[in-house]
């Protein structure tokens, strides 16, 4: 059988999906994945990317639409197992890895029945099979490693190997071309890990087709052959990147439906940093994490700590927040030497606020917006005579923040679980904006949220900065450093390598 290079492998036509009869998640969307290509599906949060993928792997039934597999019409899968029979499998954004399992156990999880002989698992056969697939796909780990041992990018590769394997085993055919959906695969990875992952993925292209779901524009531009753009549940654009000349700006406009504002892609206006030192870090050391870290943070200054995952940047900022303790050196906050094992609430008393962008970590999801904002600002809403919460003051405060942060919600009493990812993040940042701590620690402040929400968060943090809040930033997105920071410290293997100005940093990053 001769197959053409661009033969359509899987195609969905006119898919629509409505939730609870109200929210229209998908409206007449058609996409296709061809043989041996990486096709991008991009859009902001809530554009319908995830819903479409969940329909493809059989987690949701569509209201309307048709599915074609190798040119033949087939019914939509009812569960992931059926999807695998049609050659489709998915690698989720997070929580896909079971770290207590060994690599071979994880790879073959759910397929043990194929390795049973006399009601006993043939462990050796499983290991052998796992080694074969790891070798075939050039995954750099051993079948007997635990899943938490390899680097994050390798763990992703094991997940991809597992998805491919499940298609092969379900179809009973080793030569089939699987269609693997990668749902924001790079979200938890650092820059280097991303590069590594992508070079591995490109190597696999000859045997596998990928559907690459993302909202990181440069990645999509660099690694995909074609791009489908979704906005508000509709397919708004389709580009063939090998034929058309598309710039990042074009793609950005298609995704958000408006021009990118000044904060993205443009250097930031300079701020005035006062001489007053609010935080001094001297020879701070935690064995195994970081060594001899020293710097001064001035009032109104923003310092970025940049480096690859495992460089110690995350541990440094967590130490300042009081989430982990240090072993050597001195930490001086507003002129006061502090103990190594102080807890976050003591540090907050000293004026240090910590914000992590990891979804679900900060928020009280079953609470309304108003409570989520007042939780760090209770002093402000207590009555003067007896310390009783004034619901009126609480509501006014929340309304101010909702308006200021442009949070889209019907009212301040809306429960947070029903908000979009971007709005959730804005609520988290908003409560700290109201509190306006002396020192604000930001860790991955915009992870996993869309471009519009990012801009609002940058704008807010810059305003806090202008009002005299000092900040420390740790992130995986280099652009974020050049937007927010006055000074960037480059950390590697737990040590500060060099200190760069934003201009220098941009130049280093551009090369």
């Amino acid at each position: 059988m001769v197959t053409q290079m661009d033969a359509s492998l899987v195609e969905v036509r006119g898919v629509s999906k409505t939730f609870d009869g109200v929210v229209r998640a998908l409206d007449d969307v058609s996409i296709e994945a061809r043989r041996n290509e990486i096709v991008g599906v991009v859009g902001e949060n809530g554009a319908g990317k995830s819903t479409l993928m969940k329909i493809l792997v059989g987690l949701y039934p569509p209201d309307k639409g048709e599915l074609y597999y190798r040119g033949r019409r087939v019914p939509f899968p009812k569960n992931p197992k059926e999807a695998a029979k049609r050659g489709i499998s998915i690698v989720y954004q997070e929580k896909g890895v079971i770290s207590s399992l060994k690599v071979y156990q994880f790879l073959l999880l759910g397929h043990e029945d194929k390795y049973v002989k006399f009601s006993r698992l043939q462990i050796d056969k499983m290991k052998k099979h796992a080694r074969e697939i790891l070798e075939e796909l050039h995954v750099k780990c051993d079948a007997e490693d635990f899943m938490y041992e390899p680097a994050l990018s390798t763990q992703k590769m094991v997940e991809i190997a597992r998805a491919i394997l499940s298609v092969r085993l379900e179809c009973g055919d080793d030569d089939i071309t699987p269609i693997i959906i990668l749902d924001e695969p790079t979200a938890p990875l650092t820059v280097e890990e991303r590069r590594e992952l992508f070079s591995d993925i490109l190597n696999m292209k000859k045997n596998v087709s990928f559907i690459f779901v993302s909202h990181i524009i440069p990645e999509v531009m660099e690694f995909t052959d074609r791009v489908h753009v979704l906005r508000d549940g509709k397919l708004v654009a389709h580009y063939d990147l090998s034929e058309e000349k598309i710039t990042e700006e074009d793609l950005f406009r298609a995704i958000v439906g408006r021009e990118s504002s000044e904060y993205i892609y443009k250097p930031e206006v300079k701020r005035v940093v006062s001489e007053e030192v609010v935080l001094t870090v001297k020879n701070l050391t935690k064995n195994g994490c970081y060594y001899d870290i020293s710097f001064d943070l001035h009032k109104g200054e923003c310092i970025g700590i940049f480096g690859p995952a495992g460089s110690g940047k995350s541990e440094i900022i967590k130490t300042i927040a009081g989430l982990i303790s240090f072993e050597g050196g001195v930490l001086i906050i507003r002129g006061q030497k502090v103990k190594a094992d102080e807890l976050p609430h003591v540090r907050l008393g000293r004026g240090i606020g910590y914000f992590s962008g990891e979804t679900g970590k900060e928020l009280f999801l079953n609470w309304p917006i108003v409570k989520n904002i007042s939780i760090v600002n209770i002093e402000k809403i207590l009555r003067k005579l007896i310390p009783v919460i004034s619901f009126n003051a609480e509501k006014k405060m929340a309304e101010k923040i909702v308006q200021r942060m442009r949070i889209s919600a019907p009212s301040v009493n809306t429960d947070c679980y029903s908000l979009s990812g971007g709005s959730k993040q804005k609520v988290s940042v908003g409560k700290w904006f109201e509190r306006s701590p002396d020192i604000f620690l930001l860790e991955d402040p915009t992870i996993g949220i869309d471009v519009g929400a990012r801009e609002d968060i940058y704008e807010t943090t810059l305003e806090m900065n202008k009002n005299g809040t000092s900040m420390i930033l740790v992130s995986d997105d280099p652009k974020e450093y050049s937007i927010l920071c006055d000074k960037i410290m480059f950390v590697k293997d737990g040590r500060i390598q060099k200190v760069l100005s934003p201009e220098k940093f941009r130049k280093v990053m551009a090369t």
Partner: protein
Amino acid sequence: MKILGRNKLITPVIIQTLKTHPVILALIALLVIFSGLYPERFLTPLNFKTILRQFVTLTLFALGPSIVVVTGSLDLSYVGIWMLGGILVWLLMPILGMFSILVIPLLGLGTGLLIGVIQVKAKIPSFILTLSLLVTYSGLTATLSGGYPRSVRGYEFITATLIPYLLTAFLWSIPIIIVAVFIMKRTRIGTYLYAIGSNEEGARLAGINVDKYKILAFTLSGLFTGIGSIILYQHLGGSAPVELNLMTVVWPLVAIVLGGTPLIGGSGGPQRTILGALTFTVFYRGLYLSLLHPEMIQLLVGLLLIVSIVVSARGLKGVTIT
């Protein structure tokens, strides 16, 4: 507010209330069913008096633990505090005289503090810890009492009739309920306890001293149980039982969960527990009057607990706190 506007507001308020407190529907349904099935037995002053009596007992037991449940832990020590406290009153009577009744709230306070500190320091599941403590206390009670209930006279004034036709124990329970609800709803302590139950990591990141407030939750629970036990002590005739009855442990749990406080914490609280206690009492009295065998009623109580746990866990997302 204009009168016209007020009329328009009533319906949405009722709908909102029913949405956040679905147990009210169950309560109405039970009242309708039982009064329809056997009005001659159910709709009597005596029955309503009994309902009120049992409601008070249940509420005073369930109020404190429901504060702990909000934080996502569990406190089963209430019956232990009641039993051991009762026997301590009898033991200390010769020394302390009338003041010996105060040993019950002090025991509650101390027990709560102890549980809180152990739980936070040793990081063990509160269920096992408080269950072990309950068994220990009941063993201690049996040892101290010699196996017989020991009644003490002289505290009749606690439950002496103040207002005719109104149970004095009920009157006493009103301020206790108000204080509990007030603490949980309108103070910093309450807000922080809900925060810990909703997202412990988030509470830590928001600068809440999680350990301190967890200990506080257990201490409050013990204190409320202790104060309630004073009233229960006299309410049930100037003594406390010396043998552990499983039902007295289980019923308050049913009241808490039925009221809409999920065992995983983060929402609900004392104000719902009152509704739960009332609903359960009506449910129990209705069955009691139905001439079903007591064994059968126990079976139904068990089923009710299972169903309400499942419902409260599934309905968590829709539950709001304000």
